């Protein structure tokens, strides 16, 4: 790609490339046509590819995912946009009972190359239902792949890889980072489900994905001033998880801290902590700690900063890890 792109633009380019390279690729969703989606991720695509391939749908999420499944059965490769995280639940049955299970039900005779794009997470000062992090529901669901990019390069290439995958992929877009810019390289560099060490360190491992990677990088930066070298791992893939990379890192540093916006209770950090503890038991100087949202509905925006993990809460957890 030419130079620096925002995550939003990198996604838009990825959809364009996918529409160009495979005539069976179709986009479906609410307001994705003329409007280009409420976040403009599909901006200009209906104009260029026609409303037969960039399809504005009736206002019904179960209908969107359910008909996408039917299109996939007919040989299409639908990319579905859910307008906001909080509006995917009406489609939950189609995602969990149909999309995720169809391949197994058919003993492999049919494939479900459906990508479900969801802008997720908070920090944008929105009203209720527009700031949720529900990745755990999908990651717990066998049959789905769940990924989330943290930067423009990954946003572009991971979306293309997700669309090319013959399995259903829930693609979680860090909406509050849509306008962050970054270089988009000429090739993906990593397979879809590999984690990436975005900052090497020796004293503790910060594990994050999507919007929290940036927070962890800032925390690591600040920690350096306190003389602590924190390693930061961008998970990228939430299901499956690249435990090999994580295990190597945590065994090296002896400490792990998982950071996500989703509520801590049964959030992704629970699985990361449980499994890494099992794999690294004798290397741990402290338990794997978790920094995340509270067990409460996402709060009104005027207090969301207190709900969301930030640099200070991450460093507070680092202190606790060292205090053990």
């Amino acid at each position, binding site marked *: 790609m030419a130079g620096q792109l925002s995550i939003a633009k990198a996604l838009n380019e990825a959809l364009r490339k996918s529409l160009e390279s495979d005539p069976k690729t179709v986009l479906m969703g609410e307001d994705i*046509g003329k409007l280009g989606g409420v976040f403009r991720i599909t901006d200009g695509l209906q104009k260029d590819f026609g409303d037969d391939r960039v399809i*504005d749908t009736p206002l019904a999420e*179960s209908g969107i995912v359910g008909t996408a499944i039917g299109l996939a059965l007919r040989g299409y490769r639908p990319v579905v946009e859910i307008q906001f995280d909080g509006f995917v639940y009406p489609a939950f049955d189609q995602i969990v009972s149909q999309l995720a299970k169809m391949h197994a039900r058919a003993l492999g005779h049919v494939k479900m190359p459906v990508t479900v794009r969801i802008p997720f997470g908070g920090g944008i*000062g929105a*009203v209720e239902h527009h700031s949720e992090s529900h990745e755990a529901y999908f990651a717990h669901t066998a049959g789905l792949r769940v990924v989330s990019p943290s930067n423009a390069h990954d946003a572009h290439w991971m979306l293309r890889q997700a669309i090319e995958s013959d399995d259903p992929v829930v693609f979680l877009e860090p909406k509050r980072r849509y306008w962050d810019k970054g270089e988009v390289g000429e090739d993906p560099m990593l397979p879809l489900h590999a984690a990436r060490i975005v900052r090497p360190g020796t004293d503790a491992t910060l594990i994050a994905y999507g919007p929290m990677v940036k927070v962890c990088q800032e925390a690591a930066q600040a920690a350096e001033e306190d003389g602590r070298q924190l390693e930061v791992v961008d998970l990228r893939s939430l299901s499956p998880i690249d435990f090999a990379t994580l295990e190597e890192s945590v065994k090296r540093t002896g400490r792990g801290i998982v950071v996500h916006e989703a509520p801590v209770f049964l959030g992704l950090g629970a699985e990361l902590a449980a499994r890494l503890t099992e794999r690294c038991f004798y290397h741990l100087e402290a338990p794997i700690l978790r920094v995340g949202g509270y067990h409460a509905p996402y709060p009104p925006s005027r207090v969301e900063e*207190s709900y969301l993990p930030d640099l200070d*809460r991450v460093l507070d957890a680092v202190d606790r890890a060292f205090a053990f």
Partner: protein
Amino acid sequence: MTVKSTSRARKKAAPGVPDPARAGIGAEPELVQLLTPEGDRVEHPEFPLTVTPEELRALYRDLVLVRRFDAEATSLQRQGELGLWASLLGQEAAQVGSGRAMRTGDYAFPTYREHGVAWCRDVDPLNLLGMFRGVNHGGWDPNEKNFHLYTIVIGSQTLHATGYAMGISKDGADDAVVAYFGDGASSQGDVNEAFTFASVYNSPVVFFCQNNQWAISEPTALQTRIPLYRRASGFGFPGVRVDGNDVLAVLAVTRWALDHARSGQGPVLVEAFTYRMGAHTTSDDPTRYRQSEETESWKAKDPILRLKAHLEKEGLADEAFFAGIEAESEQLGLRVREGVRSMPDPDPTLIFDHVYSEQHPLVDEERAEYEAYAASFEGGERH
């Protein structure tokens, strides 16, 4: 069987198939209207209405004040006092007409745009602004004015309304419920399930659909290929399309519908045919998807102008009256401005306050952690 027979059958059926282009097209014979855009009263055989001059003036006052409140909120959003606003501009008559048709004991289940209904239910306008300012998610007591919390997830509230109406039947009360929703919402499974439950249980609920022609950027033709009020016929209850910019017609039709419901005859679908004059919300940009000509053409149908024209033609209101309303709306604007600006930010511990109504160890633990953590900042930032 021969091809001939099937094709004949097809020809026979073809007329029965409605033309998608007709979806949402206005000025249909079945559109109930009692006040023309020019402000002239017309009669409708099924929906006669006698209103006193006082009532007419009161309705006019509602319309003007509701519009003023809405305009105030829009500018408060521009000034950064609100994070978002969903304007009802153009839909005042649909909301005031239906709101005024309700009795005190009736119950309204709104979307996020029913500011005019809230006004008629006597809900303090400032209550509506909390969620748009981001200090709460609604937070008022729905039972105080029988006005439920705003519901953002499209269609959900139609089931809550139906359940509430089922409760009214169980209580043997003669109240009724109005479930508000939009043209886009008509596609949601929940709304159609509400139609089934309400019709099967014969519940006292009026489904009030404000067809404002748009669901964000999507025209009604993307939700239905026939006029929406006809959806009711598929579930076995009456549907009526009313001129949503005609406050008198909406009042008459909704009164009839509520009476129909409360008298044990079950649900009714009212489609108020109106128009969203503004953006979907303050974050929306309608120029990307609709022609200004369309919006212009609806200006001529403005709900306030036509009632004003009527009052003037009939000499039912004088300068003093209109001036009085003007002054009153200035007052309202002022009160809203000051009220919003002085709305305090909630304490962050609000996060933990109402997750459960009964004690919950995890919430208590996280609250304690949060408070200890927050306390550690006393005396300035750490980083």
